[in-house]
């Protein structure tokens, strides 16, 4: 491992990589701090700009945005009670009451330090766990991958939002959209309508940008602009070392909760933040002060949601399975650079992997430095008018989408998918399950058909090994948990 780390250091040691990670984190914090903008949208918009960079620089830039957005989401959660990202929703509970009491600066500092510590712990977990898991995953054949991807498809339930049924519909639509183009076994075209542009299928980036950016642009047209929620300033109180030290236990516990939940596909930052917050409250001598501006509450929720960041990369890098929407986009970014995440990546491109690991470690430092230096600047971002930001985003979308393949057809796909995304928004169908199914769909189909080719059509091959059984059991448990949660939710409603 040390040898690989040395190789990684050599690969990483170029100024552009340092620059990429710092700029990425800065952009991520900026995007995360704008209400309504998500890290997924930020990574999607930045993706076309990375085609011309070398793989390590490109991936680090995107990972920087991912991590920055996670922290950035806490800024608006604390100052204007509007979480910039879903994962920051828990930070509102104590962050906003603190801001109301004139302790906004203290809450933001605690959010920054706890995010950086949790991010560091999560990155360490990634580095220590990824290689052994990848080595084990080398034993996987098509049936094992099919079982794994079936399990991964259950993550749709985790990103389905309020209605599980609509989450499944979105997933089904994603699977259907993924069938457009060339069939991987016989080379037959599917739903191409004699259009050359459709024979290769729909390009991933126009679909992604269309689904995540355009509906937001359209939706804002229906709203009155210029009415901003009241924003508190940072105040004069600063975080003392004693306050940080007294919250350290919650930060470390939250980081490990984040790592554990982040490594499981589909859980995401929000549940980790709430679980960490709950544990901190349970263990506190003053649980009654939680929810009324307790700085430990901010520390616990931020460490929980940032602890997820590095850990979500574990299933992505080792098994090629994205754990959430952003890692699904990162999977696309790897593929654009001819890198296919999964166990073989650790055999063929170990230097690149460890180069990325070294850069990822630096992202925690970048977050700390940028967050500390620019905390006042970022706290003003929420005041930037949407009427100015969204037209800028639109121009980015058009240039970025065209740059994918130099085809105006991709721009048309992006706009059409945007319209589809807006209709989905009207019917409250979430976009995230669509994207995850769109990414996993071809892998699902391909591994199923390859398995059946191997067994000459006998489906028993799908249960051929203990690994298959393990994933089928996990799928069953996951489905049972979904049904139980749904049932409990219905009972609570009534």
């Amino acid at each position, binding site marked *: 491992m040390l040898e690989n780390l040395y190789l990684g250091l050599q690969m990483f040691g170029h100024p552009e990589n340092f620059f990429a990670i710092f700029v990425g984190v800065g952009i991520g914090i900026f995007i995360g701090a704008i209400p309504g903008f998500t890290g997924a949208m930020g990574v999607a918009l930045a993706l076309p700009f990375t085609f011309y960079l070398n793989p390590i620089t490109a991936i680090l830039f995107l990972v920087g945005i991912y991590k920055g957005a996670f922290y950035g989401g806490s800024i608006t959660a604390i100052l204007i009670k509007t979480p910039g990202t879903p994962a920051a929703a828990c930070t509102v509970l104590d962050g906003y009451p603190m801001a109301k009491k004139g302790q906004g600066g203290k809450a933001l500092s605690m959010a920054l330090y706890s995010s950086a510590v949790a991010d560091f712990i999560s990155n360490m977990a990634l580095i220590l766990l990824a290689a052994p898991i990848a080595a084990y995953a080398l034993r996987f054949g098509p049936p094992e991958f099919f079982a794994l991807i079936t399990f991964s498809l259950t993550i749709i339930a985790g990103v389905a939002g309020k209605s599980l049924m609509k989450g499944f519909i979105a997933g089904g639509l994603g699977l259907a959209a993924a069938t457009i183009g060339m069939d991987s076994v016989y080379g037959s075209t599917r739903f191409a309508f004699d259009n050359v542009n459709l024979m290769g299928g729909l390009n991933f980036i126009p679909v992604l940008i269309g689904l995540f950016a355009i509906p937001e642009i*359209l939706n804002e047209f229906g709203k009155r602009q210029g009415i901003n929620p009241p924003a508190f300033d940072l105040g004069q109180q600063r975080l003392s070392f004693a306050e940080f030290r007294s919250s350290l236990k919650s930060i470390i516990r939250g980081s490990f909760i984040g790592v554990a939940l982040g490594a499981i596909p589909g859980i995401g930052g929000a549940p980790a933040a709430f679980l960490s917050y709950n544990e901190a409250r349970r263990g506190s001598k003053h649980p009654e002060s939680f929810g009324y501006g307790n700085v430990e509450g901010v520390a616990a929720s931020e460490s929980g949601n940032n602890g997820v960041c590095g850990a979500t990369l574990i299933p992505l890098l080792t098994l090629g399975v994205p754990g959430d929407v952003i890692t699904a986009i990162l999977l696309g970014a790897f593929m654009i650079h001819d890198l296919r995440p999964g166990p073989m990546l650790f055999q063929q491109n170990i230097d690149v992997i460890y180069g990325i690991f070294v850069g990822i470690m630096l992202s925690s430092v970048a977050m700390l430095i940028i967050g500390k230096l620019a905390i006042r600047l970022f706290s003003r971002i929420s005041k930037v008018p949407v009427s100015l930001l969204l037209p800028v985003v639109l121009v980015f979308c058009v*240039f970025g989408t065209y740059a994918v393949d130099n085809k*105006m057809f991709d721009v048309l796909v992006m706009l059409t998918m945007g319209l589809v995304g807006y209709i989905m928004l009207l019917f409250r169908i979430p976009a995230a399950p669509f994207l995850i199914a769109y990414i996993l769909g071809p892998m699902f189909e391909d591994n199923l058909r390859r398995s059946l080719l191997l067994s000459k059509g006998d489906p028993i091959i799908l249960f051929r090994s203990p690994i298959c059984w393990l994933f089928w059991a996990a799928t069953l448990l996951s489905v049972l948990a979904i049904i139980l949660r749904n049932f409990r939710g219905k009972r609570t409603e009534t």
Partner: protein
Amino acid sequence: LRSSNRETATGSYKMKTCTENIILGTGLMAFFCYVLFVLIPEEIFVPAGIQFRALSPAFFPKLTSALLIGLGGLLVVRSLVERKVLQAANPATSPGGEADNEEDNSLDYPLPIKAVKIGAAVFLLFSYYWLIGIFGMLATSIFMMPLFAFLYGSRNWKLVLPLSIVLAVSLYYFFGKVASISIPKGSLFG
């Protein structure tokens, strides 16, 4: 009385959601029946002599279409049952009643204005695509960005106009010169 009004309003909202879901479910079923019975046989070439059904290029599209038809049907049935239960529990709620939306839509324009604004935005989006073919990506972007800002209600021309030029030129320079991509110049300038 206030509590009873709130209950009626929430009931109307749920009723509205049920109606929406029935439309959605019916639409899904209709579209994917068309996919399953018309598009798949017409648009997927299945080579002769495939031994196992699961290996056919049409198998997975058929499976997803059937799944979506099933989900659409389930949504319709569930919404119909929910609507019946709601009507039985509170006869004052009707599908056409005033709905108190559970989501925060306080910033939304009234529905007719909203529909016109969004319709105009969709038209402009596709016009953007179409105009690129005539005027090129740079000129169209310089023109479109202020237009969109205007539609959003921004009147700060001193900021919007220079920003649109700087942004479009920067992106043109980055993709055209740094990344060596041929940016569309349009039939007028090409």
